[in-house]
């Protein structure tokens, strides 16, 4: 039997385990994300999906198993880890824009301090990115002066400014007022169309249908099901996925 030619995995998790005390939050997780792929991770609260997302840039450590990015094992700490994180964009549920810095400074800080880009170049690039996510005219303001949706779009621009190989989204719309969710999702859909590799933890099934290449369903620390959005939403295999979908899709 010959091995099929596989696209090399950009992100690969192999037999990853993690405990919080007695709680086994990640149980033998195996996941591959290829370049350009958009993987949406869904599942009930406490299923470990956020933790999974955060292990990929080692904001959460793991107990055992391995996580590689472009075939290289995640460094444990120090300069090497910082360098790796520069290549992995992250968007948080609570935005986490630097509160004491302007919108423009939020986006230029990484390129200037981490990549050594000149201030002028960094600002030019930042303004273009802010324009692209629709908050170009807010560049001089402080984060607290912006709405949640605007802040989250700035956070996406901040991550993009590092020209990441992969973007992690940890429930990017969960802290937003309903009327602001779409402005953030639109930016994400756009990114997905442009070929960005994305791992998205979300409760937005609309986004999963529209932009995902693959849906990963997690429950109780395990990956229960992996399928294309179409398969998953129309014909879920596991009883837990059926149960989950029945709860979230009936009130639509």
């Amino acid at each position, binding site marked *: 039997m010959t091995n099929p030619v596989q696209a090399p995995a950009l992100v690969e998790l192999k037999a990853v385990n993690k405990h919080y005390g007695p709680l086994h939050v990640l149980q033998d997780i195996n996941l591959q994300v290829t370049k350009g792929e958009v993987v949406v991770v869904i599942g009930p609260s406490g299923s470990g999906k956020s933790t999974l997302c955060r292990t990929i*840039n080692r*904001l959460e450590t793991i107990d055992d198993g391995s996580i590689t990015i472009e075939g290289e094992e995640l460094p444990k*700490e*120090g*300069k090497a880890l*910082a*360098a*790796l*994180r*520069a*290549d*992995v*964009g*992250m968007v*948080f549920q*609570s*935005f*986490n*824009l*630097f*509160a*004491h810095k302007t919108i423009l400074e939020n986006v230029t*800080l*990484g390129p200037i*301090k*981490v990549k050594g880009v000149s201030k002028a170049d960094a600002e030019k690039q930042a303004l273009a990115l802010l324009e692209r996510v629709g908050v170009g005219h807010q560049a001089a303001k*402080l984060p*607290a*002066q912006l709405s949640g949706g605007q802040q989250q779009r700035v*956070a996406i621009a*901040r*991550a993009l400014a*590092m020209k990441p190989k992969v973007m992690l989204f940890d429930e990017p719309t969960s802290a937003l007022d309903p009327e602001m969710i779409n402005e953030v999702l639109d930016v994400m859909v756009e990114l997905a169309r442009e070929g960005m590799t994305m791992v998205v933890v979300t409760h937005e099934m609309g986004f999963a249908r529209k932009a995902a290449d693959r849906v990963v369903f997690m429950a109780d620390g395990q990956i229960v099901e992996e399928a294309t959005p179409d398969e998953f939403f129309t014909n879920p295999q596991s009883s837990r996925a059926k149960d989950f979908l029945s709860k979230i899709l009936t009130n639509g």
Partner: protein
Amino acid sequence: MNVIIDNSDLFLTGFKNTGILFAISAFFALILGTVVAGMRVSPAPAMRAAGTFYVNVVRNTPLTLILAFFALGYPKLDLPEISFMNAAIIGLSLYTATYVSEAIRSGINTVSVGQSEAARAIGLPFMQTLTLIVLPQAFRSVVPPLFSVFIALLKNTTVAAGFSVLEAGAIRAYLSERGEPLLPGLLWVALIFVVLVLGILTPLQRYLEKKWRVAR
């Protein structure tokens, strides 16, 4: 009024030295205190332990003992000589730095963990996360306690009078030698301290609080 006019030389020299002791000690205490606060939140256990050890030992030692060590004990060691003034500066800096460190550490705790996570996520190493993101925000929230520390330092400088430094706390003793009445002299010294605090430190604190007020 006569006391202060007749002995203006004494008051001038005394408060000039108090000013020098205060300014230099405050400067070094701020730097050292910030470094120690950074050590105490560092990911390296050895750094955390060293910072904690220093704060616990020095903060729990009476200031008089620390100054006595540098003014009286240190000269007995076979080390380069230092003047009483410099000994007082070293002692006051080391002592005050522990309080600065604790004030700043409480400020660091007010900065949400998401701020440093976001900094790490864009690839900033620990030092830059601390100096660019966490400390600037921490400082803003500790202006009032930090100024309490510095006001205490200003008054603590008088302890140096016990170790042959002619500063404001020593004025009383010199006045007695000159046969001046004690009470008016003491009251003048106290009044000048109040003026220094209300006239310089408090307005500076108010200015910084206003300037650094951030909407969160």
